């Protein structure tokens, strides 16, 4: 794979696409032009075919800075029902557990495991499952006490972290801890009060992915560690055509998107940026304008 040449590739694709869509001269296929040029050298009288040059399109790069999910998603009702049914089936069909291989007979660990296993089996097969087995009430009480003592020794009363972060309750859109189950994307508010991804122009002689890296740091600050996934752009966006005051079409604007992951730190936007927010795909729709949304919605993840 020739990663170094991606800019050349993408720009040539772009030119080809433009050739398909614009003026009649360009619609002549490449071999045809070549033959015309070849004949030019021998027969001077033939009309010269020169492609008409419009204004060069202005290229810019944007970075879709992503924070991947940090916690597992909550299974749906159907999934929970399915999983618990399958777990029950598996428990019924599985081979018996080799207690004597894993536990010393009569040890507290074995006692605790047996009690926990009994609890799980009753949950799977009904509250009366295995009732006739615990005939000795005194022994059962002693077992419970031993297991409790073991739990205290091991300090098993560790609390689980809540699945909803405090920044969710506070509606803190700048926090990287919000919406742990979802993919979040960084959106910036520029001087025109428009929300967009971090972006910037491509300088002359610069490769697209290098421009993306430079522009991301220029707008989001140096206080974060981000990794641009690929040198290939993952999509492009063209804003609607605008006319100059004289009525001539202005050069076309093309934005190439690159995907990046934030690893560490936080965005500290430049002074030209009014605000920033970490948003899910659904939230982005209400922030950006319709044309921009239609251009980017298929790039973003529904997860």
């Amino acid at each position, binding site marked *: *794979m020739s990663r170094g040449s*991606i800019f050349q*590739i*993408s720009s*040539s*694709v772009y030119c*080809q696409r433009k050739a398909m869509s614009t003026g009649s001269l360009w619609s002549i296929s490449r071999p045809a032009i070549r033959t015309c040029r070849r004949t030019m050298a021998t027969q001077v009288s033939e009309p010269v075919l020169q492609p008409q040059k419009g204004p060069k399109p202005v290229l810019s790069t944007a970075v879709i800075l992503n924070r*991947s*999910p940090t916690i*597992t*998603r909550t*299974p749906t*009702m159907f*999934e*929970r*029902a399915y*999983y*618990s*049914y*399958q*777990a*029950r*089936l*598996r428990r019924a*069909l*599985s*081979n018996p557990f080799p207690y004597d*291989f*894993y*536990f010393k007979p009569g040890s507290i660990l074995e006692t605790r495991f047996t009690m926990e296993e009994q609890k799980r089996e009753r*949950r*799977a*097969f*009904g509250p*009366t499952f295995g009732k006739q087995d615990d005939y000795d009430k005194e022994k059962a009480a002693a077992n419970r006490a031993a297991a409790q003592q073991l739990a205290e020794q091991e300090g098993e009363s560790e609390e689980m972290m809540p699945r909803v972060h405090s920044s969710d309750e506070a509606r803190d859109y700048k926090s990287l801890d919000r919406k742990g189950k979802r*993919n979040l994307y960084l959106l910036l508010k520029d001087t025109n009060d428009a929300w967009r991804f971090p972006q910037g122009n491509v300088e002359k002689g610069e490769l697209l992915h290098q421009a993306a890296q430079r522009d991301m740091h220029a707008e989001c600050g140096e206080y974060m560690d981000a990794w641009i*996934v*690929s040198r*290939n752009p*993952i999509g492009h966006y063209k804003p609607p055509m605008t006319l100059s005051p004289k009525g001539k079409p202005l050069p076309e604007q093309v934005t190439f998107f690159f*995907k990046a*992951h934030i690893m560490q730190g936080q965005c500290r936007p430049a002074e030209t940026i009014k605000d920033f927010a970490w948003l899910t795909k659904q939230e982005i729709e209400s922030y950006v304008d319709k044309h921009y949304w239609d251009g980017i919605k298929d790039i973003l*993840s529904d*997860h």
Partner: protein
Amino acid sequence: MPLRAPSVARFGRPPAIRKPLPLSPTTRLPQPPVKIVTRDFAPCRLEDHYHSTLQDNLMYLTYTHELGPRPPPRQIRLTYDPNNPYSKYRHNPPVGGSQLGRKLPPPCTPENVVQLEKVQIHIMNKEAITNRSNLLGTVMALRALTGETEKAGGQHAVEGVQIVRGKKQVGGWIRKGIPVGAKVTLKGPAMYDFIGTLTEFVLPRIREFQGVELPPASANTETPSAVSGVVSFGLPPSAMAFFPQVEVNQDAYPKMYGMHIHFVTNATGVGAQDRARALVSGFQIPFVRRS
């Protein structure tokens, strides 16, 4: 009293069996009237990670742009004339050998993003050559590590721990057909659980482990292993004690065994191993360059 929907994860008593079930002629155990097969019984964290993050990233990372359809493959003359009745059924590779190492990967599409197909763990036990009962510890260790049994959960394709036999007679080393090791193939959630255990409990605790060493830049990229999309590495015997399944009763095993782990992906063609490594490193298995 407020109405509460019954929990989907709780079950009542199973229905009473009114007619005795027919007994299996071999095991004399009651047989259910249908074939019961169990499937995934818990959400899988690493599989979700693959679908929410890795798959997109790998598609962007491994994408190669192609303009237009591919040119037809070069026709290379076969070694023997295929119309000659004398050599009609003979193995007839193209002149210069098979072109396996130069086969192009299929065009990049969202459908064929590199994906894990299976993980295979293989332990060779040399002591089994002299006494095959030495394999018992190996088999037990593999069963503890993976929890796989033959036809587990009614799935006929699950093979469990399999005995590996010598393929060839090699003087002073191995004999043909004798058991020398054991292997197990993991697929689906069991595979992802094993990778999770490996990367969270085992690899961080191996002493002076920097990562899986990459081959040098001068390594041949046309070998069958480089174009088949399999990533393999070995673990030393000391690493087995770090698996929590073995750690709890390490004394129960006669000794610790090293193992080979193969990550089999769907990548094929030139550069398949690189793409497979990109995938495997997404599951937090580190790779380092040889210094």
